[in-house]
């Protein structure tokens, strides 16, 4: 009962949006990649690296601007490595992504230790976070204002990105090319499209979006970098992307679904449940969500087949 009460409160809805932001960023990135025909398993590692380098560059440069440069720059560098090895050196995308994740988990701790002398977190550094934004008129509306206003600037950027990615994918020539390459690369290349170049661009765009998600974790959600702070969000974002069928709006909806369980696990801590079950909830929910979605898909496919047979 207490849980139900806290779920219905504006505080929970506020937190829900808060925890959905990083997943949404990465899921949008994954959507761009997926539409172009690349499964980017390296999201996890890219988030981790941009989370660290955002904080480090901000602290070294002495301003949020440098943090943004460092975060997005590092995400672009890692994405370029991924794209080069996958597209030019013809390495399997799953292996590339795993390699990026392996290197990232070591690299972040290694660099963190070099920069701060500690392996756990960056609390000794002064980090520059993105500001909170109060939206003028909305913030004065009673309940709605508490939920929608006062979020981190990046949360609003994420929502803006849903629209931008939609416009990019469905209203620009580049988006059309990406979708064509993803749908059938041979058909696309037979009409003169450079498959490698287009996919390269898609991976870089994905890198920027994912990098923003990583920076949100260390420069918004928290105000420091913590070792392994991404904690599977990159993988959950991949699941959100495939559940949203790689469309921007689909990614938004599925990110919200998965983030709900993330938020719920925060609320459930008041109960006398073993904490491990609470911690496991977002991951278990992702498996359940993907399974339910796939069952639905296969039922739909079967129905279609039956219809075709009767005709």
């Amino acid at each position, binding site marked *: 009962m207490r849980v139900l009460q806290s779920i219905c409160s504006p505080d929970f809805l506020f937190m829900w949006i808060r925890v959905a932001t990083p997943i949404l960023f990465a899921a949008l990135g994954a959507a761009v990649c997926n539409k172009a025909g690349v*499964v980017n*398993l390296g999201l996890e590692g890219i988030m981790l690296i941009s989370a660290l380098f955002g904080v480090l560059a901000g602290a070294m440069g002495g301003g949020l601007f440098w943090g943004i440069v460092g975060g997005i720059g590092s995400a672009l560098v890692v994405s370029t*490595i991924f794209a080069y*090895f996958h597209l*030019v*050196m*013809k*390495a*399997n995308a*799953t*292996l*590339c992504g*795993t*390699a*990026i*994740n*392996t*290197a*990232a*988990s*070591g*690299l972040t*701790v*290694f660099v963190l*230790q*070099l920069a701060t002398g500690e*392996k756990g977190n960056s609390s000794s550094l002064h980090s520059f976070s993105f500001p909170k934004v109060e939206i003028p008129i909305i913030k004065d509306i009673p309940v709605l204002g508490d939920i929608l206003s006062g979020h981190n600037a990046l949360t609003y950027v994420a929502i803006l990105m849903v629209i931008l990615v939609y416009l990019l994918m469905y209203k620009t020539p580049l988006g059309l090319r990406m979708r064509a390459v993803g749908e059938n690369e041979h058909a696309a290349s037979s009409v003169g499209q450079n498959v490698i170049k287009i996919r390269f661009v898609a991976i870089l765009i994905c890198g920027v979006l994912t990098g923003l998600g990583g920076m949100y974790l260390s420069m918004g959600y928290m105000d420091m970098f913590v070792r392994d702070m991404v904690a*599977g969000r990159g*993988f*959950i974002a*991949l*699941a959100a992307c*495939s559940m949203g069928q790689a469309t921007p709006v689909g990614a938004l909806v599925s990110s919200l679904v998965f983030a709900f369980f993330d938020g719920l696990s925060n609320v459930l801590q008041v109960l006398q449940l*073993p904490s*491990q*079950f609470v*911690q*496991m909830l977002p*991951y*278990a929910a*992702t*498996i359940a969500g*993907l*399974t339910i979605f*796939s*069952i639905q*898909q*296969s039922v739909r496919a079967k129905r279609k087949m039956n219809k075709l047979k009767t005709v």
Partner: protein
Amino acid sequence: MKNNSNKRINLLVDGAKMALIIAIACGLVSLIVFAVSEDPWNAIYNFFVGPFTTLRRAGNIVEAASPLMFTALGVIIIFGAGQFSMISEGSFFIGTAGAMIVAISCQLPSGIHPVAAILFAGILGMLVALIPALLKMKWDVSELVTSIMLNYVVQFFVIYLVTYYFRETESSSLCSVLFQDSATLSVIIDGTRIHAGVVLGVVVCVVMWIILYRTSFGTALRITGDNGLFAKYTGLKVTGIMVAAQGIAGFIAGIGGGAELLGMYTRFKWTSTPGYGWTGIVVALLARRNPLFVPLAAAFIAYMNVGADIMARNSDVGREMVDIIQGVMMLLIAADALLQGWRQRMIVKAAKAEEEVKA
């Protein structure tokens, strides 16, 4: 004749590629150390030579290779069937829990106790690995994402088991009560901690090689992995093979977890998954997905890890450097195009030479 020369060229190029990658890895180690260390020669010495300075340290290499052999075999079988399940990690960890349960709560004679514990570990590992496999078979759920999510679920579940049922209450940090003496694996070389699990690992490598390359199931599995559609049209039960492959892989990773726990520890001490499943991918790739090369590849990766530990203790360079190296190695090995031009030129040249001989 022609086939033979192609085989030779492939072997030569593959060998050269591996040598190049190992050279790049070692070069990268030196590069990083020189970039960050105050006393780079000391760090380099500790990394490369350190593991061989005492018998105990050399033993550490073999001990560290042991869990990697099992997880790498799991990866080889799963990838070999064309599946991308990352469940080795979860199967390994649930295996450690399975072995812990038997080692603590069963009363068995000393010869049978570890065998029972490791078998139970394998069964649990198999059950966990079958979850993403069956979800994929039944409803086409991506095994890649579900297996990774399942690894997290397994991790928290195992910690829950230890915390609520087997915890040593007198210790402030989280660990289980002591195993019964009859359950632990015996040390086989005095002065080290090399245990019977290492032998088991090598045996499993050989057995897996026989299964993969000398049985009809192995052939079917490899055909399925190389070209699923072709396999399907030749009448192979493709989905059954894929599920079986993941079950076997889970079983092997599970017994690896059991052997590691009973060979190296007297109580359960992990607070999160040790990551051997992910490292197993590097080992599997380095072994060129051939079970017979797995012990060697595992020993090399173990050598780097032991070297990194020694270096971290005796110098100012952190051990995490080795993860960066492993990631880079994975990228390079996976890069099919690396040295591909050279291979192509040699094959063309050999073919031309043959034609001239004929003419």
